[in-house]
């Protein structure tokens, strides 16, 4: 079976061949930093869409991590926020900021990556329930179920990527450059527990996509969909409590994902 790295002819950014484990990278957008410091595991860039009125150019910062397993990523994230200093009376995590997560899919087969997209799409509203409610209306994190993107779900992943848009909540465009998919939901934060929970859910999504098939039969079995929900969101008790209303919450998304089996 062809993998993402083979299909797109990528360079390995991380030796994942011997690592069946989940690996991800994060982009932390932060404003009001009084002095940008180097922190192990991150590179720093300035971002014109972020503000820092007291800085020379007025731009905020983005700290971009190297790819790491979940626990190491949470560790370097905690370390980053211990070292940063901010201007007083400024909000480092305004509504302009977000925390993007790139999940490594280099070694996933093409069908497994497509399954990851479909499982995400099915539970998209639950992913949004994990983050600040303003994120669902953010113009740079558009829910797939508000667009016509579901018409692409029946296509192979390499065709989906060509027609994808960067500013969707799940951005597939980086598959062709890094072999990753980018989750753009999470608001700007310095909370390592929240990041750990978010990464744990994404890890479960990544694992499940290698174990199940999203097909016509499964999409008509509520028990199967419920078991997928419980598997993915096991690390998020606040989301699991929506179990009794699962099919109301995912009503639109279930319709969307049915387009994948036409």
């Amino acid at each position, binding site marked *: 079976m062809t993998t993402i790295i083979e299909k797109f002819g990528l360079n390995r950014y991380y030796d994942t061949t011997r690592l069946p484990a989940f690996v991800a990278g994060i982009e932390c957008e932060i404003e009001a930093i009084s002095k940008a410091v180097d922190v192990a595991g991150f590179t720093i860039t300035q971002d014109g869409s972020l503000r820092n009125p007291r800085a020379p150019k007025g731009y905020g910062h983005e700290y971009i991590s190297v790819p790491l397993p979940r626990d190491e990523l949470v560790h370097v994230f905690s370390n980053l926020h211990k070292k940063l200093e901010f201007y007083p009376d400024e909000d480092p995590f305004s509504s302009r900021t977000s925390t993007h997560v790139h999940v490594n899919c280099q070694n996933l087969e093409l069908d497994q990556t497509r399954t990851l997209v479909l499982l995400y799409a099915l539970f998209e509203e639950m992913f949004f329930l994990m983050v600040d409610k303003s994120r*669902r*209306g953010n*113009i740079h994190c*558009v*829910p797939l*179920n*508000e*667009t*016509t*993107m*579901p*018409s692409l779900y029946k296509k192979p992943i390499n065709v989906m990527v060509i027609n994808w*848009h*960067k*500013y*969707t909540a799940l951005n597939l465009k980086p598959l062709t450059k890094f072999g990753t998919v980018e989750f753009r939901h999470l608001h700007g934060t310095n909370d390592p527990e929240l990041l750990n929970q978010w990464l744990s859910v994404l890890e479960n999504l990544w694992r499940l996509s290698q174990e199940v098939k999203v097909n*016509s039969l499964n*999409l*008509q079995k509520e028990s199967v969909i419920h078991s997928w929900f419980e598997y993915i969101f096991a690390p998020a008790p606040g989301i699991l409590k929506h179990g009794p209303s699962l099919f109301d919450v995912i009503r*639109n998304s279930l*319709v969307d994902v*049915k*387009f994948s*089996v*036409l």
Partner: protein
Amino acid sequence: MLFTPSARDDIVRYYQHTYVKFRELGDTLYYIHRIFEDRVEAVDVKHNQVVIYLDDEHPYEVDYVLPHKSYFQDGDRAMMLFRIPAQQYKRGICGDNVCIGFPYGSGTGGDYETVEQSFQRLQTYVNKPLFVSLSEAIGLPYHSTVLSPRMAYVREPSTICVDFVPVARVEQGSRIKMLRPIFRKEVEEIAGPLWSIE
């Protein structure tokens, strides 16, 4: 977003020449057409003007969120409004972030044709939606009729669409022939018990 004098540049960037709703003014849509140093002027579809003064002590907050994807009835056509994920900064409705289309012809592949994003059409969208039963829809002399936020009946060739994809055909004798059986549950919900679904 707080509308203050210091936020004027952002107001221009995010809202100028876009449509928004103001919390206190219900479902009326306003077009933000002029932004001055001290005020923002907006008009509704009947040209009634509202003015928001930019004031640091009493800032007005605009918290408009772009609309959900949904069908709505616009004259004799079922129109669907949906979001466009694009590199743009506008937070009110504009042609860069929202599109409106209707099911196209007798195509089977989910084709749609887009239409102009007029003020009247957008106001029709934000008004309370009217969904009719399948039996009523068949009796209406419309090109297409809205059945639910995601479904419409298209007169020619008498199909039921989910979004723009025909999933069932309405036949003589209160019968419905499923073209895409995976959507049987959705069709059953809008058809009700009087219809036979095959």
